[in-house]
């Protein structure tokens, strides 16, 4: 049994160019909202993950490191500078007032790992005192990260129980980190002793990677968590005044630049979304108006056949809603196809932490985007429907053409 909607359906099918154009517009609407929401959310997630990760309040690096390399890069890109300082500073700083937890890290240059196609960054840390990496461990096979054990970042193609080889040295993956949206995702963490072994192995193999390092008591950076009774800035100033060769940085300052770029990206995403909406809605309204002008005679005929004004509106609305609903679906699917597989790419391109929202959030964003674009379609079709339902049937029919 065919109903009024059939007229709308046939019109969609038999005017493919117009229908596809309207669908594409709706898809663009949905894509902009969905993509914008997911990207901005992923950046916000990445940012809070980054804040958490910097569970350390203060990061202390050799003074020359601050000029050598942008510190933000160290945290985000994993472009760790290969800077080193005397390990004795660790003991000295731990004595300072206000220093709660304190833990060293050692940065190593990239090496090609058997596990991965990309050069992995190996970071040495001290599992005993660490408070920055351990909280991210998602899965582990032992309580301890011992000699020749490694912890791998979430994006690496290596899993708990695997054996990896660096410079011929076999190491065991004992833990894997949760997704952080930062450089941790592509790094490998291990103990100081293991790093020592790896350096020696690389020298023996004459790979010469770490020739510049004296294998003595060096560290790259010190992470400090200030105890509750002290002010972070006081401790920072204390270190900077007393240790000219070091530089203490408030980690929140380090990421303030990121927070600024995040705000900028959010603003840009918002502006783009608004522009896209204004343009696409404008085109849709014009398209529907043109369509109603062009089909005036048809609507007058429908009216003469006994279609009420309400039925004419139903036809136009059915067309608008179905096209924008399908378009919205297409837009969201496109968004999923683009954003999810390319999130790694987006992350490196934007040089910002990027952590996709979880499935329920993505679903909410998708449904929201589809509803919005459908609503936009219904609204523009609504204008056209209002116009169509007011046509002067007698006038149109008497003119013949």
């Amino acid at each position, binding site marked *: 049994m065919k109903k009024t909607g059939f007229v709308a359906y046939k019109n969609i099918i*038999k005017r493919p160019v117009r229908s596809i154009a309207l669908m594409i517009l709706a898809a663009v609407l949905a894509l902009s909202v969905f993509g914008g929401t997911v990207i901005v959310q992923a950046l916000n997630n990445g940012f809070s993950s980054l804040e958490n990760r910097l569970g350390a309040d203060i990061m202390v690096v050799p003074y020359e490191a601050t000029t050598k390399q942008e510190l933000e890069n160290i945290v985000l890109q994993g472009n760790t500078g290969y800077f080193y300082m005397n390990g004795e500073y660790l003991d000295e700083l731990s004595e300072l007032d206000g220093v709660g937890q304190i833990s060293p890290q050692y940065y190593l240059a990239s090496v090609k790992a058997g596990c991965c196609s990309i050069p992995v960054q190996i970071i040495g840390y001290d599992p005993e005192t660490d408070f920055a990496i351990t909280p991210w461990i998602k899965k582990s096979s032992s309580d301890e990260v011992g000699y020749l054990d490694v912890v791998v970042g979430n994006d690496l193609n290596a899993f708990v129980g695997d054996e990896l080889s660096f410079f011929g040295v076999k190491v065991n993956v004992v833990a894997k980190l949760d997704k952080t949206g930062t450089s941790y995702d592509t790094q490998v963490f291990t103990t100081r002793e293991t790093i020592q072994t790896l350096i020696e192995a690389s020298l023996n193999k004459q790979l010469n990677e770490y020739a510049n390092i004296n294998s003595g008591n060096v560290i790259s950076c010190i992470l400090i968590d200030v105890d509750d009774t002290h002010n972070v800035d006081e401790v920072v100033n204390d270190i900077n005044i007393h240790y000219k060769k070091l530089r203490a940085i408030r980690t929140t300052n380090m990421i303030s630049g990121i927070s600024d770029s995040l705000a900028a990206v959010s603003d840009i995403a918002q502006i783009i979304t608004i522009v896209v909406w204004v343009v696409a809605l404008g085109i849709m309204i014009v398209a529907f108006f043109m369509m109603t002008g062009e089909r005036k005679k048809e609507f007058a005929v429908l009216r003469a056949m006994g279609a009420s004004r309400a039925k004419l509106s139903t036809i136009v609305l059915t067309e608008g809603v179905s096209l924008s609903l399908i378009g919205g679906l297409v837009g969201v699917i496109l968004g999923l196809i683009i954003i999810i597989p390319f999130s790694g790419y987006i992350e490196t391109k934007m040089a910002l932490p990027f952590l996709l929202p979880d499935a329920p959030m993505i679903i909410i964003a998708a449904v929201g985007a589809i509803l919005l674009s459908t609503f936009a379609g219904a609204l523009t079709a609504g204008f056209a429907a209002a116009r169509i339902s007011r046509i002067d049937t007698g006038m149109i029919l008497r003119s013949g053409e």
Partner: protein
Amino acid sequence: MMQIRAEQIKKEFYRKSKGTNIFAAVNTCDFTMEEGTLTVIKGRSGGGKSTLMNMLSGILQPTEGKILYGDVDIYSMKDKELSEYRNRHIGYVPQGKSAIVSLSVIENIMLPEILYGESNEDGAVELMDRFGITHLRDAMPEELSGGELRRMAIARALIRKPEVLFADEPTGDLDDENTVIVFEALREIANNGTTVLMVTHENDAEKYADKIYRMDAGELSD
């Protein structure tokens, strides 16, 4: 017996004409059609024929006066009611091309049924047969000739078995052969009990008519 009666109807439009803004396309007149008759209205273009027909067929509200279908004052109904009334009781063959281009021939013919969710191919098939367009069943309107399109429009106007049929210049764009086909069809429809009103320029139409009117400059005359 359903008589169609127009009582003191008049149609004015807003348009600059000789000093006033109001212009009467149809001056006050009475008009009656008896069941099963074929009435023809002739007259020069712009005389008000279509305006009169549209008032009679329920798609143009008169400025003054009433249109009665039997006892029913059709313009006392709300749009929804009147639309349904038109759908069930009034057939209308519009002037010129009136096909819905996205619908096939059979779908066009079933359109009045489709609008009310009551489509049924049997009636349409019968009408296509009667008007010799069965072979065009699934064709699209753009593939049809003027005569075929007009026969399709007549079939569409008859699908609901209306008591009244209006046809505005149904032969305006047709050749002689098709003109005769259309006139004969309308005559036959009237013979079967449907009240038919036709507006035309053709002098030949008189042969088929039970009653002939002239309409010039808004004045209706016998």
